[in-house]
């Protein structure tokens, strides 16, 4: 069976520098894969490669068996790739409700002209969208912030809202870019539960970039490790924890020897 997402031999060069070189990565339907690596390893670049922010200098990305080369970010989102951002990007002036509503545009049944005529079809469509949005907000405990501008939300809720906004596009693949950044241990535990809940409830594949080992090891079925733009390891959480190349990448050679001794 072809995987949902397949990155084949993809390289992105900025001038002379390869941010990611010749990486291969496949994510199956319903899989939860972690992507880790030290700072500057190319994790976010990998996200930008998948979502079409940067075109690959070599190689290609396929989604659902379809070559994504040349498709702009919005077209990829329409195919079912949703992402969050390392530094949260919400529509600050829009209410929580409208942030999610804006993401419902992919499933709108009526055209903009209907908005001017305001007939029954339009009102029904808008009501259906509002119901969906409210249901999503309730699931993720954001209902009480419904009419608050997104910029005024507490940090944790902003992260959650960004995920909810992704889910409103009904993605097949969800890319989470450091969702635990800036969270305390209690919030991280909550986040792990949240990610598992999403995967269960919405039947989607998730690719998770994360620094917090606690989160990555807690939820991922498979982990890929990047270092200096190269994939140095891939395997189950247990395998990755004991992989010498990974330990070296994170701690340096001396330490990896130390660890081996202990």
């Amino acid at each position, binding site marked *: 069976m072809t995987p949902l997402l397949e990155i084949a031999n993809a390289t992105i060069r900025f001038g002379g520098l390869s941010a990611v070189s010749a990486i291969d990565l496949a994510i199956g339907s319903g899989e939860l894969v972690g992507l880790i690596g030290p700072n500057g390893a190319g994790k976010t670049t990998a996200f930008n490669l998948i979502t079409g922010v940067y075109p690959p200098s070599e190689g290609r990305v396929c989604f659902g068996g379809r070559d994504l080369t040349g498709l702009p*970010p919005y077209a990829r989102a329409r195919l079912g790739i949703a992402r969050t951002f390392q530094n949260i*990007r919400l529509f600050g002036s829009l209410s929580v409700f409208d942030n999610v509503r*804006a993401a419902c545009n992919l499933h709108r049944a009526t055209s903009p002209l209907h908005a001017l005529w305001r007939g029954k079809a339009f009102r029904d469509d808008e009501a259906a969208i509002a119901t969906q949005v409210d249901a999503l907000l309730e699931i993720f405990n954001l209902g009480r912030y419904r009419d608050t501008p997104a910029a005024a939300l507490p940090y944790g809720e902003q992260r959650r809202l960004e995920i909810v906004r992704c889910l409103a596009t009904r993605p097949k693949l969800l890319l989470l870019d450091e969702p635990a950044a800036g969270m305390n241990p209690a919030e991280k535990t909550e986040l792990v539960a949240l990610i598992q809940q999403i995967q269960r409830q919405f039947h989607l594949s998730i690719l998770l970039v994360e620094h917090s080992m606690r989160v990555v090891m807690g939820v991922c079925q498979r982990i890929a490790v990047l270092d200096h733009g190269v994939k140095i390891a891939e395997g189950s959480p247990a395998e990755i924890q004991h992989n010498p190349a990974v330990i070296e990448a994170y701690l340096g050679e001396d330490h990896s020897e130390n660890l081996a001794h202990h």
Partner: protein
Amino acid sequence: MDSPQPKSKKRPRPQLTLGATLALGLLISAFSGALDPYFLDVLTSMGIAVILAVSLNLVTGFTGQFSLGHAGFMSVGAYISAGITTALFAGNPLGNSAFAQSGFFLGSLLLGGLGAAFAGLCVGIPSLRLKGDYLALVTLGFGEIIRVVFQNIEPIGGALGLNGIPPYTSVFWVITWAALTVFVIHSLVHSTYGRGFVATHDDEIAAEAIGLDTTRYKIVAFVVGAFFAGVAGGLYAHFRLSIVPTGFDFTKSIEIVLMVILGGMGNTIGVILAAVLLTLLPEVLRPIAAYRMVLYSLLLIVLMVSRPRGLFNLNWAALLLHLKKRTTETLTKRGAAK
């Protein structure tokens, strides 16, 4: 924050507002014979200003594309519609049938609007890749090009302008179009589709990530905005009865931008009020003649310094809540005193 917020606000009914405004327009025009012509003139100017400001608000306020070419689009509409009516009016083929004249005028306004929309499309497609100051410069350049082009087309009067335009614009037409502009833009922006304009304004990268084609949104905003600017131009031409290319230079664009900024970006009510205010201000200051424009400019500076986020950018909900709290406090105090 912990108190549960109301589940849904009362649904605004824009159709009702539209209907009420149209009725008002009819009422005023029915009694226009009895009203002071000066008052009607000012009212007409206000209506045209409202159309211009509200349409620019879609581009600049909601979608966040800073445009200094709105007067350019206005002039395209003005020249097209006035060109049509003036050329045909000369032969007077319509006679004096008010009905035929109205239909004819409406047609010329629509063509003027469509012409301006087409100009908006032509300018928008290449230039909307640019952001901020760069876009402002391109649109400024466009406005100037249009002006120079009109100055050099002799059949429409060249630098002398177009004269003898038939006086078709009435208060009714202006109020109708102002109401229609507000209705269309309000309905569009507040629909699910239209949330994309504001999303584009707030964060383009995030908007693309949820599947919104931001370039398309910007172009739609530009084209719709240009259409109404063109209609406003047509109304203006048939109100002033003569137009010159220099009447649509970038000072005019700046004036419209000012209305949007003063009203508060993306605040329709505020922008309408600012358009009304900025039209009234020079009239009110008329008695001091020579110092009028000095004081006008001074007032603008004071307003911009003291209320940079818009004259009408008040948090009404918070204000009401505060008043309510104060009232209850006073009442309980009085109760306690007894």
